[in-house]
């Protein structure tokens, strides 16, 4: 048997980590865990999280842990890592996680999955990176942005939101770094889709020197993927799919491959090249 050595490797099993902070941010929530055992995660990786001890709330759910990308990582002064997570409450699992407060315990497994490639590995001609984030999809983009800054690789961040109540985390995760924002409701920045901003950039830029990274809602991902494929711009997407385990055990996280069959998103992703998959909207009900 062979381990994947190119990615930070998760400790075997799950571990209890303490919540040390939790705060609202623009309709979302950010909380911070201290992880004393895991390695520093790479951009694009995710964790499986479950509040302890009362994971199941009224109604017997949540039951399975939830896949959540880290939104920021830093060293903790008294040892271990501080991991930030950005949460959008959409159901029992994310609601329960969002209700955790300082001093609470959380089951953590991971970091799981693979990382974003560096721009040069994605496109040998890449001058820099274009990051396209939507909604809570800005979390992995923020992590990637920080790594690129550390490595001195230029990047531009385009962030799209439905409205102000779906725009949490920008200030905190992107800080004073330059970002271009799009709001569908026009409440700030560009009025419209973030893909409008991407199209502007790719038209202005030499599309041949671009490397695009994106994370966000399925429809946005598919739009970004199509834009890039049509222009032969290499693109990596951080996808979502229902996950029970996060480590390849359940085969639940199937995403259709471009050449037929499925990949397991938790171990073959969650970052995938745009040309490897058949669609970023698998499982979504077809639009009537």
């Amino acid at each position, binding site marked *: 048997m062979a381990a994947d050595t190119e990615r930070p490797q998760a400790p075997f099993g799950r571990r209890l980590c303490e919540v040390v902070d939790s705060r609202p941010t623009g309709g979302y929530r950010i909380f911070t865990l201290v992880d004393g055992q895991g390695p520093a995660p790479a951009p694009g990786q995710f964790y499986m999280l479950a509040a302890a001890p009362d994971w199941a709330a009224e109604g017997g759910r949540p039951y399975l842990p939830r896949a959540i990308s880290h939104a920021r990582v830093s060293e903790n002064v008294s040892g271990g890592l501080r991991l930030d997570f950005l949460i959008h409450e959409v159901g029992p699992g994310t609601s329960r996680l969002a209700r955790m407060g300082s001093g609470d315990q959380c089951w953590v497994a991971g970091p799981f999955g693979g990382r974003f490639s560096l721009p040069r590995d994605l496109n040998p001609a890449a001058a820099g990176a274009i990051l396209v984030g939507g909604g809570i999809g800005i979390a992995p983009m923020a992590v990637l942005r920080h790594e690129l800054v550390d490595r001195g690789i230029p990047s531009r961040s385009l962030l799209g939101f439905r409205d102000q109540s779906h725009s949490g985390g920008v200030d905190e995760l992107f800080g004073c770094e330059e970002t271009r924002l799009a709001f569908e409701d026009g409440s700030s920045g560009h009025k419209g889709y973030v893909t409008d901003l991407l199209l502007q950039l790719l038209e202005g830029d030499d599309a041949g020197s671009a490397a695009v990274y994106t994370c966000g809602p399925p429809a946005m991902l598919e739009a970004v993927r199509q834009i890039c494929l049509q222009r032969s711009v290499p693109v990596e997407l951080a996808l979502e799919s*229902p996950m029970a385990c996060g480590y390849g055990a*359940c085969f639940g996280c199937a995403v259709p491959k471009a050449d037929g069959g499925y990949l397991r998103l938790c*171990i073959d992703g969650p970052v995938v090249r745009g040309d490897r998959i058949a669609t970023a909207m698998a*499982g979504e009900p077809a639009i009537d």
Partner: protein
Amino acid sequence: MTEIDLATDICGIKLTGPVLNGSGTFDALAASRVFGDALLEDFPFDCYVSKTITMNPRPGNPPYRLWETPSGMINSIGLPGPGLDGFLDRDLALLSELEVPLIVSVMADSSEDFEVLVERVAARDEVDAIELNVSCPNVHSGLIVGEQPSETEALLKALRPITAKPLIVKLTPNVANPQEIAVGAEEGGADAVSMINTVKAAAVDPDSSRAWLGVGAGGLSGPAVRPIALAQVRVVSAAISIPVIGMGGITDSESALEFILAGARVIAVGTENFRDPRAGSEVTAGLPAALTRRGFGSLAEAQSVTFG
């Protein structure tokens, strides 16, 4: 606490303890990619059961394949896999690095294909036993083999002469009287039954008005089905003399012991592996205390209980 002996066996295969995995709920190859050497050093099960192998490679079902339910989950994975050749040529050599006995699960939709699978899998030294996943329609009769005692018995009679290695029949819970199927399996020459497989279930998309799962319906597993599994283990173990491998919603040593008291000889951890990759080890770790609390001096004592 005094030392509690957990050693046991199933169909003559010696085991360090009674904890297996449910087929299809722990991919040792993927886990070793993800967790590295720690997996082999701290392997969570006393015996490893492979995901169900089919004759030809299968992609599995279209998404979505999972939905969470109250205290459980539904899956419609659809047996993705490399097919028999891919399994024998690649996966099996890797699985033989595991230091525990190996049971290979197989499924086919004809007796002929089952015969090929059993013959070629049993021929490999790495394999200690074969589990027959019989929740499949007979291509000739159209009947689901595992829903009919006579079909199950006929299949076993066809397969029994092929190998001396133990044949285990995985029972479906979706029948009125699982004990009748188990009796058919025993009479056909099976060495053990394992149970339960998942319970037919469906979910509605929370947003649209369609079925959530890509193929409409799937199978329920997890703690929600534990009471169903315990009832079936109770009636099946009373009806047959071959051993039962019990599973269905086992989450900890207490629920594992419940299956043994209800009549199972050994148990398997399935869905709980998804919540905790080391769930098997946790079950084992808690067993001595759970046995002691109920007044048992060994696993064998609990295994010998006749359940009311």
